[in-house]
């Protein structure tokens, strides 16, 4: 493929790959049973957020333990923008097909164009938040950075739960656009349509992330990550580069947060809890820090394991008491087990630079230097992969 496309500009090639991803995703929504569409959309959203996190950790070597907070900023901003636009009267007639009492209670729905606007607003807000945190983060290392992001990850959901204007613990309903009327119900359901839009938005974001990480910014990030003094001597503005990494990563999380709100039609603190932050971290680490494809595996794992274990427990026909005990706990145990196994066995991944950020939590001052992360395989890296035990 790459050889065929040899003459075309990189950006066009990436756009092509993004289009292929979207088409594959759309096809998937037709293969999956109806009840699996929503988990699939969740996977797409988590993939976006995990990809942003893996760029931050793998490429810039900075750590964020509270990435769901950026999702919350994006999600809540998207929600407020969407409702404000709706109240301004940017609406269309409700979709036909409502019956009886429900039809009489069907108010107009938000126009489709409001969605990209509100998503963009969410991204902008997340960018601002990312810049703010990034400014602090640029001065912090290892456990101190972890501490700050941890605080943010715990504080933001609590703040959203506390203030009445943010809807408190039960959040509020968001007026999101429905499936357009030209799309007949027997072709695609509402859930499928929402999955498609999430796919498109996430694919665009992945293309941008890939482009950034392989362009000048990515080069600067790796230079700063590997040796700040050398990078500064080479004329790279160290602090600004580190802040930029946070901004880019927060932007992807903000988009993911907005998409999650779109998928569910509601916004509440529970979506962006500290557990979500840890799941994103888990997805990024499981897939291999710094690897966009790895983020996909990680996100898939995080979404699929709880479902698979729930089905397993159901299929076991265990007694109600045992099933009850297994229901919520088994997925967590399996995720933990997988993390341990991956850490012990995937030798190449733990050596990636972002991993040092995680490890430095336990071992301050340790700073073994390895070449670039797997997001950016050089010829040298390729040889090493081949030679890996």
């Amino acid at each position, binding site marked *: 493929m790459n050889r065929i496309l040899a003459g075309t500009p990189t950006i066009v090639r990436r756009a092509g790959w993004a289009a292929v991803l979207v088409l594959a995703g759309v096809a998937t929504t037709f293969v999956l049973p109806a009840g699996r569409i929503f988990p699939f959309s969740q996977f797409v959203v988590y993939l976006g957020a995990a990809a942003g996190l893996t760029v931050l950790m793998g490429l810039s070597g900075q750590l964020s333990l509270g990435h769901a907070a950026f999702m919350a900023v994006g999600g809540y901003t998207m929600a407020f923008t969407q409702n404000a636009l709706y109240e301004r009267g940017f609406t269309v007639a409700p979709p036909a097909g409502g019956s009886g009492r429900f039809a009489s209670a069907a108010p107009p729905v938000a126009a489709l164009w409001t969605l990209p606007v509100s998503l963009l607003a969410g991204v902008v807000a997340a960018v601002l938040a990312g810049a703010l945190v990034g400014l602090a983060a640029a001065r912090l290392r290892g456990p101190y950075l972890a501490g700050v992001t941890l605080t943010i990850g715990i504080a933001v959901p609590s703040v959203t739960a506390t203030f009445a204007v943010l809807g408190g613990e039960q959040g509020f309903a968001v007026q999101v656009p429905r499936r357009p009327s030209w799309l007949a119900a027997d072709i695609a359901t509402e859930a499928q349509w929402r999955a498609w839009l999430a796919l498109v938005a996430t694919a665009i974001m992945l293309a941008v992330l890939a482009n950034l990480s392989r362009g000048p910014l990515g080069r600067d990030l790796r230079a700063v990550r590997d040796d700040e003094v050398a990078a500064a001597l080479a004329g790279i503005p160290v602090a600004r580069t580190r802040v930029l990494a946070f901004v880019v990563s927060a932007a992807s999380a903000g988009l993911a947060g907005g998409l999650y709100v779109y998928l569910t039609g509601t916004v509440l603190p*529970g979506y962006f809890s500290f557990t979500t932050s840890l799941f994103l971290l888990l997805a990024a680490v499981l897939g291999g820090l710094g690897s966009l494809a790895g983020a996909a595996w990680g996100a898939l794992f995080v979404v699929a394991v709880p479902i698979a274990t729930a089905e397993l427990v159901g299929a076991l026909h265990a007694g109600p008491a045992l099933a009850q005990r297994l229901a919520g706990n088994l997925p967590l145990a399996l995720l933990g087990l997988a993390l341990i196994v991956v850490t012990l066995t995937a030798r190449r991944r733990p050596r990636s630079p972002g991993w040092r950020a995680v490890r430095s939590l336990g071992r301050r001052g340790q700073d073994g230097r390895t070449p670039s992360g797997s997001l950016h395989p050089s010829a040298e890296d390729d040889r090493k992969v081949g030679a890996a035990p």
Partner: protein
Amino acid sequence: MTWLPVHPVRATARAVAVAGCVALVAVLGACSGSKTPAVPYVAPQGVSEKEIVFGTHQPLTGPAAAGYSKIAAATKAYFDYVNAKGGVHGRKIIYRIEDDGYNPANTQTVVRKLVEQDKVFAILNGLGTPTHSAVLSYLKDAEIPDLFVSSGSPAWNQPGKYPGTFAFQPDYTTEAKVVGHYLKTASAFAGQKICSFAQDDDYGASYLTGLETGLGTPVTARATYVTSNPNVAPQVDKLRDAGCDVVVLATIPSFTARFISTAAKLGWRPQYVAAYPAGEYGTVAATLGDEKDLLEGMVGAGFLPAVANVSDPWIKLFTRINQDFNGGVAFDGHVLYGMAVGYLVVQVLQKAGREITVDKLIATLEKGGFRGPGLVPFSYSATSHAGYAGVRLSKVTGGVQDYFGPAYVTDAGSAPVTEYTEATATPPDSGIPSA
């Protein structure tokens, strides 16, 4: 009567249906009767000739699992009891219970699975305010009935906005209005300083609104807490320093126990009045352990018969069903609650008739007139989807929580608090409501 399911079925299945219909003609003499309906019956999602499927989201694990996890099992036990006696209109009631761990993000996933994969007819008794809020508008958009939400938030009573959503228990404002009215009128509390200790959320806020409406005056002092901070000593100090005689607790059971225990350690024992979610004696006493004597004299509120009253015919019936169909788990307020939900569902299904549709279900509910184990009637009408219309007050005496005085009814708005004098219903001999 022709049988036209929404989803195409194989011709053989249809042939069976037709054959069944013909057989029915032979037995009953008429299939569609003389009053032939103009439109043939189209079964909604989740309703087939032999089954009707309900689904629910419950905290089977996580922080809210204690106690609450028994509710859905009890409802299912009641359905099993009814199914063993032939079901409703020849249909067995299937109840799919999904665990959301009291996490709204999980609620999103499991409710979508119930609706889109398991194809339930309705969501029943979904538990929790934050969790159920997450799926409220989804269920409306999907046009899935959302029956008897297991929470006292006033949000479930918005028939104009959410026509398919119905509450079950009295909302917090209604309950607190009755409590406020009682504190204002009872001679024992004349001239006493009434204070409140409430959860800092929708629950605490709507309870306080009702309390102050019932009292007719603001409380002397109010303190709040958040569940993430277990230290309540500052709040105890504040209320004691304000000279409170009565502390109204709009709390969750763990914080009911925490406040009472902390106050006792600081040498203070005011009169406690606990909201319905705060004061289930069994749960709070278990948390307090050796200190459970501190609950003596605590005033509470409820809308179902007292569990301790073993001579009550409802308690007798449900204890028997609990023994036969629920593995004989300890019979407490949660089991009773679950059974009461099941009873109401069967009653509604009976009244809605065999050719049930979503609209017919809603119309049946809005017609009202349901009598079951409740001490007060339901508020259901075309303009109200609120649940039980009031409460009766209870008191802990000698370790037993039992009712005293009359039951009261009111609403979450400006209706006065009035005594409810009608006698409570008795269960039919079969234990199954008729149409």
